[in-house]
């Protein structure tokens, strides 16, 4: 085990403080009994209780979770198919263009994605609301799933699929019986990543949401404009916990699939 020197330790502490102090302040304040954010008046779960009675906030949370679930599922299916096309399709015509177009949303400014989707929805006269957010989030998160699944597929031993075909299993059933069970940790971690991304998106949702479909980040943002209520701290703390759990689960799954990959290759 390497011992940290004094300088290193200070640098580490400063770095972590820079990253996590704001979040820590928020989390601590969510347990503050005082109505004023800046004054500590003892620990309590008061704001969590108030939150539980805030119908508007709970409604927004419910919209957010449903959007995240649906868009993550759609993005996982489409992203996995895209990853399969990229790793298995061989050198088909337009492969480079296809891979470029799959990955472009990764670096596309969200404002542009949001604005362009808004223009599209207006042009084809789709009423903005719940489903437009689902569609927009699917577009946003699809590329992340494709990246995660593709990185697993490139290390996948193709002779496993050939063995299944050889034993009389048609291609689609081979995918379901052999490929999918072996890449599922990557698929699941892609899903969780998509879920977390959808849950915390504000920019795109602000373009494509409509009346009656307010996501949690939108709700929080609009409340904060009228002044920070301690209740918001409680919401944010819960949201941080959910996203953190999702990301931890995703990284554990990726690690598991990575540690299994060389084994598959060995056999």
């Amino acid at each position, binding site marked *: 085990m390497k011992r940290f020197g004094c300088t290193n330790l200070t640098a580490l502490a400063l770095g972590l403080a820079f990253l996590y102090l704001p979040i820590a302040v928020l989390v601590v304040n969510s347990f503050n009994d005082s109505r004023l954010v800046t004054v500590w008046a003892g620990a309590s779960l008061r704001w969590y209780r108030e939150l539980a009675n805030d119908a508007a906030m709970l409604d927004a949370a419910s919209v957010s979770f449903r959007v995240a679930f649906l868009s993550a599922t759609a993005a996982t299916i489409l992203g996995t198919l895209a990853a399969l096309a990229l790793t298995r399709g061989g050198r088909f015509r337009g492969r480079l263009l296809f891979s470029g177009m799959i990955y472009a949303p990764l670096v596309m400014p969200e404002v542009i994605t949001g604005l362009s989707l808004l223009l599209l929805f207006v042009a084809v006269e789709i009423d903005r609301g719940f489903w437009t957010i689902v569609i927009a989030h699917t577009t946003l998160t699809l590329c992340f799933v494709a990246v995660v699944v593709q990185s697993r597929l490139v290390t996948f*031993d193709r*002779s496993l699929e050939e063995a299944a075909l*050889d*034993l009389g299993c048609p291609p689609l059933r081979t995918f379901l*019986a052999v490929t999918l069970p*072996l890449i599922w940790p990557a698929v699941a971690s892609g899903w969780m990543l998509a879920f977390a991304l959808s849950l915390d998106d504000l920019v795109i949702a602000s373009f494509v949401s409509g009346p009656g479909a307010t996501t949690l980040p939108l709700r929080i943002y609009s409340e904060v404009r009228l002044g920070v209520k301690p209740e918001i701290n409680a919401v944010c703390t819960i949201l941080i916990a959910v996203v953190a759990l999702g990301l931890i689960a995703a990284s554990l799954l990726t690690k598991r699939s990575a540690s299994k990959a060389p084994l598959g290759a060995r056999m």
Partner: protein
Amino acid sequence: MAVLVSFDQVTKRFGDFTAVDGLSLDIHEREFFALLGPSGCGKTTLLRMLAGFEAPDGGRVTLAGQDLAGIPPYRRPVNMMFQSYALFPHMTVAGNVAFGLKQDGLARDEIAARVDEMLGLVQLRPLAARKPDQLSGGQRQRVALARSLAKRPKVLLLDEPLAALDRKLREETRFELKELQRRLATTFVIVTHDQDEAMSIADRIGVMNRGCLAQVGTPAEIYERPASRWVAGFVGDVNLIEGRVTAVYPSFVMVDRVGMRLRVAHAPVAPGPIAVALRPEKIRVSHAVPDGAFENGAAGTVADIGYLGTLSLYKVRLDDGLVLKAAVMNEQRAERPIHVNERVWLSWTPDAAVLLME
């Protein structure tokens, strides 16, 4: 024996590279056939065309008279054992063996009975519930074998099946494979780059080079009567002596090279340049001048001796500069051992050598 698999003028290209070049080959029923060749000679491509993973660019592949063109791998009555074994890591040993049977929609108890029979065949019954990553290399190899045999294929294809095993296990497994093939009376086609493996296991060998068949024959035919310089050099150790045919007699020919005149048993051939292939173990090494019975002899100096236990390999430099290798069985402790830099006589009979036109 009836022809089971037939390749007719089969060609396969990958971009600019021609992996298999207008190759024709018949494989008989119940035969253990080995495709032998250096890596990149097209032997695995040939096997994969039979399994259905590659489609030929030209020619036909037929199985029991049926043209296989357009038939996908999952509808062909052949099964393959992969070099990597390709065991499904998320299934147990029994699950792996049952996989192919389930695809046929067999009844549950029938599948169980067949899986049990196959695991018995490869002596893996106690390990049926294990996962592949809990097995040793040799055990995995046997699971792969059981899985590929479970559907009772008309032809079993084996792609370098023993390459991943260590040497001792490999040699034992060769005989088990041979024994299994005899017992099941199934056609086995094995791809290998290991000539010992091909020689010891196969009824017939097809030696491949650069997408073409260099020679097809029994192991003894290929070893004793190689068709070309390349086959002679690839299969086993050989001395190649370049010379010219100068005199032709009914049952033998005389080959001359500088400082040496060889008598080689052969049907009459046209005089001209030729190569003589001489296996090291067919050369006798002695201190004394050989008697007339061997008819071919040359004197030289021992340049190097390799002691290999069962035999010793002598490198002898003849007076005209040619180096010949001679392998001598160490049957008994020699009364007068041969040392490096000693003068010795090499001798061999007329039928020990083979004339090579190509």
